[in-house]
């Protein structure tokens, strides 16, 4: 059976090969020619696009750390998967992440604990579980495990490529179709409920989508660095955007620049890809924030009102 991954690769690999001649660098062009690297590049781009859409909503919902929390939970899942000898530990990550997201959502809506605290408990608890089971039953922190912590594009085999693409496509469809409703339930849950919108159901669905998207990002940037693609581009966009729509577009601009520039630099300087992407994303945020602050101070002080 041909998976969705090989289909996507079949369509896009000629495109990548076509633009390869204009790609700078000594190593970066391999991302456009070698199948393994092509897979990594496509996965990184797709994951960034979805993370950007999701991140905008996370930011508005004041759940910027939700992604980070679920990523650590995913690591616990990966660890359990590895120890159990699973061929695809990402499936365990998905299971752990989705269940935790639903529990966190319920704890928040039932006001058992405020947002941050419940996320914190799951984050540390599941990360600890992962570390403990790896130490006792696994081989400790191996290179593979390190890949899940800091991201390793070469971990993306055809099976996880399929999983990443499936999650990304399903989440994008869900987020795009429901984006108005999501916005309405986020901005004013009570008004949305009066309007007849299923606020609780939408909240649960959003949690599941977040959990799944985080898992799809684990191999690309690593559990410790998921926030870099989930929140940083969206936060940068809030600085320059003037409407929800324009923020969405800016998020993609910043996210994709972070990924492409990050991959390029990590290939050429031989650093980890996840850390370089995260660093570039943070630097883009810092540059935009500084430029904006200077602009507001020296050129157009009246704009400070907003």
């Amino acid at each position, binding site marked *: 059976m041909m998976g969705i991954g090989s289909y996507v690769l079949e369509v896009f690999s000629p495109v990548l090969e076509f633009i390869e001649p204009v790609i700078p660098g000594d190593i970066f062009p391999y991302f456009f020619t070698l199948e393994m690297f092509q897979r990594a590049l496509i996965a990184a781009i797709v994951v960034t696009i979805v993370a950007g859409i999701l991140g905008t909503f996370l930011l*508005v919902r004041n759940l910027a750390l939700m992604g980070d929390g679920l990523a650590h939970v995913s690591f616990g899942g990966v660890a359990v998967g590895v120890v159990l000898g699973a061929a695809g530990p990402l499936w365990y990550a998905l299971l752990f992440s989705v269940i935790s997201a639903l529990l966190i959502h319920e704890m928040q809506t039932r006001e058992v604990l405020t947002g941050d605290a419940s996320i914190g408990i799951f984050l540390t608890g599941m990360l600890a579980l992962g570390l403990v089971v790896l130490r006792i039953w696994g081989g400790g922190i191996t290179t593979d495990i390190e890949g899940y912590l800091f991201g390793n594009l070469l971990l993306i085999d055809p099976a996880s490529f399929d999983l990443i693409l499936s999650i990304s496509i399903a989440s994008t469809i869900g987020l795009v179709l429901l984006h108005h409703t999501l916005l309405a339930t986020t901005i004013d849950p009570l008004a949305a409920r009066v*309007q*007849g919108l299923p606020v609780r159901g939408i909240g649960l669905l959003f949690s599941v989508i977040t959990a799944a998207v985080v898992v799809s990002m684990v191999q690309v940037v690593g559990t410790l660095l998921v926030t870099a693609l989930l929140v940083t581009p969206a936060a940068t966009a809030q600085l320059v955007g003037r409407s929800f729509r324009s923020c969405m577009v800016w998020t993609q601009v910043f996210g994709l620049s972070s990924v492409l520039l990050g991959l390029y630099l990590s290939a050429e300087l031989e650093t980890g890809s996840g850390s370089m992407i995260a660093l570039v994303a943070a630097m883009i945020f810092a540059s935009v924030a500084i430029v904006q602050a200077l602009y507001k101070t020296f050129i157009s002080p009246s704009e400070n009102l907003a």
Partner: protein
Amino acid sequence: MVENLTVVRGSKKVIEDVALTIRKGEFVGLVGPNGSGKSTLLLAILGFLNAANGKIEIYGEPSTSNRHLGKIGWVSQAAASLPPNIRITVEELVRLGTLTRKNMFLRKGRNQDRIAKAIEMVGLEEVLHTDVARLSGGQRQRAVIGRVLASEADFILLDEPLVGIDRESRNSLLKLLDELCHSEGKTILMISHDMAAIRQTAHRMIYLEETIKFDGPSEEFPDLEGLANLRGIEHVHSDHVHVHEKEEE
């Protein structure tokens, strides 16, 4: 219509034995001190809080039936309800009003007339594409009202819409609400601390403090002394009562 309503939250009886009927096209002001049960009454009317006793009917249906959802509009206090981390234009915000349970996947272009009309009614045509965060308090509250007007709601509940708004905007906002009743045939139930403002605009006033202590035409709403009697505040010093009332406004 509300009949013998009692709502208990936790172990405390918040409102007791409340009965009222609101007719179509009425503009009712609901006043009362903090913690008097105003919000509780509204939430109960919406069916989000269960009554310990009594019943509530909206458009002839029990309020818990969910049938009325969509016919009622909720306007929250703009100052408190918009999240800080969001960039959203007036038009984008108003468009959200057109969402319904059956129409959750909005497409651009649909309901454009209703959106434009709602924005015109609240007088925000000039700032159509402006980020709501950059508007004044009064404009922001108008945008939130515009969102309800874009829906098909006939019965509009407003929770403290006058908070954080300067005098001029307050007056034009009250005028807008008055017009909605008269020209658009909307029914309005508004909570406010601003008794003077409500008295000027609403047709009818309800004073709630655990139970309804006054319900009648705004002109007949008691003055401060009458109100003190109504509330059972003792005349230690008449000055004392005065100060107390002012704090509430």
